């Protein structure tokens, strides 16, 4: 009995001392806990290393659009096309910077841990998406034309993000982001020039294609998750 008692006392002392030693949780983490996010998940999300970078990139896009809004050399359709082209790239940059050895010093430690790699990627992606989407919406408010086209970046953003994740399971997130980003810009420019309409890639047909690509990439991501769960540290 006495050794058991000693162990319990030692454990209780550790609990008390941990409460004293531990720094207070960040405002963001407290907000997540108040929103009933499970504590371990809140901890993982709050410590996403590149959340700040995602905010900076989003702010840059918003500022770029804000400055282009006052540029008289572009018409309204051209300015809207710039926003719609850039907005889906923001989460791609965020994803590239949210997972991998270049993004996180503790990446190798996370590989050796039992936590699912897919879960970590998706949690960090969701965090970066939420951060970037909030600020991209600001850019939308500055968009010169009204109507649904102002939100026409949402499905393309889902498609570019899901494709980056799907390719990233095999090539690494940074390479995947480079491939997807380049392909996206080339595709938008080619369609716009062929149609003679800067917003052509974002109209109904483009939205349907984006939805299909997002769905397909999600299937590829889920079926290829073994690459994230397994030994990818080289």
């Amino acid at each position, binding site marked *: 009995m006495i050794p058991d008692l000693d162990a319990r006392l030692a454990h209780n002392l550790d*609990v008390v001392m941990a409460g004293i030693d531990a720094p207070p949780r960040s405002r963001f983490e407290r907000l997540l806990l108040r929103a009933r996010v499970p504590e371990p998940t809140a901890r993982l999300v709050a410590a996403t290393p590149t959340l700040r970078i995602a905010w900076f990139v989003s702010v840059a896009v918003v500022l770029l659009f804000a400055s282009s809004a006052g540029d008289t050399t572009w018409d309204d359709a051209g300015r809207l096309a710039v926003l719609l082209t850039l907005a889906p790239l923001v989460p791609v940059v965020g994803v590239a910077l949210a997972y991998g050895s270049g993004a996180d010093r503790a990446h190798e430690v996370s590989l*050796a841990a039992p936590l699912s790699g897919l879960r970590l990627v998706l949690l960090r992606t969701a965090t970066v998406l939420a951060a970037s989407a909030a600020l991209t919406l600001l850019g939308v408010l500055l968009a010169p034309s009204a109507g649904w086209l102002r939100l026409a970046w949402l499905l393309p953003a889902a498609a570019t993000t899901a494709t980056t994740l799907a390719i990233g399971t095999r090539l690494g997130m940074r390479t995947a982001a480079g491939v997807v980003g380049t392909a996206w810009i080339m595709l938008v420019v080619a369609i716009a020039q062929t149609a003679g309409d800067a917003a052509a890639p974002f109209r109904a047909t483009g939205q349907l294609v984006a939805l299909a690509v997002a769905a397909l990439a999600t299937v590829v991501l889920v079926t290829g998750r073994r690459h994230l769960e397994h030994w990818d540290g080289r």
Partner: protein
Amino acid sequence: MTAPTLHLDGIVVRLAERFTLTVDSLTVGPGITVVQGANGSGKSTLLRLLATVVAPDAGRITVAGRVVADRADRTDRADRADRADAAAIDAALLATRRSLGYLPQHDSVPPRLRVFDHVDLVAVMRELGTDPRSRRAMVHRALVAVGMDDLGAERCGRLSGGQRRRVALAAALAGRPSLLVLDEPDASLDADQLTGLTRALTERAGDATIVVATHHAAWSTTLHPAQTVQLHEGQVRRAA
């Protein structure tokens, strides 16, 4: 948790055509195993292999009698029978990672996080503790073990190299894992800290399998290792 025994058979790891690690046969049992060798001899590759971070291109690894990797593991075009094996390997890999504490060679401590938060974050990834309070108690105990408990609220970027190393070591030691893979844990430590590290490792050696890579031959003898593995140009020269 009992200390696991690891077997490596016919292992080949190729790293971008510039380096190949070859291990014909190696058994790592309970107690401390020291891995030594010159720079570029393959110490870190061997430890990353044991920590389930790098996969073998060929060969088989078993931990506590369960296969965690073999050549078939790297092909996704498996038939139905192979998929059953893959499921068993997945389960064994997960079980191994649940019992593993890993210290990589490079600085693995993010500068923006606070000391306690980093060790706690790794503890979350390692699924330690049945609830947040017991997990945080384990984090506190690990920080005490490396003498960093009074710096829990400090940002890691403000610490010295030796202090950051001890924080990373605390993240590996937390929860008393039965398998510890430590790549140069003595790097950047002064004499007193080295003595503390020796004490912490030898105290754990009774109920854990500990693999330590080091350049520090004199220090490694103070660990009273059960086995010393010598690597030379990617090959195990001697395991005694």
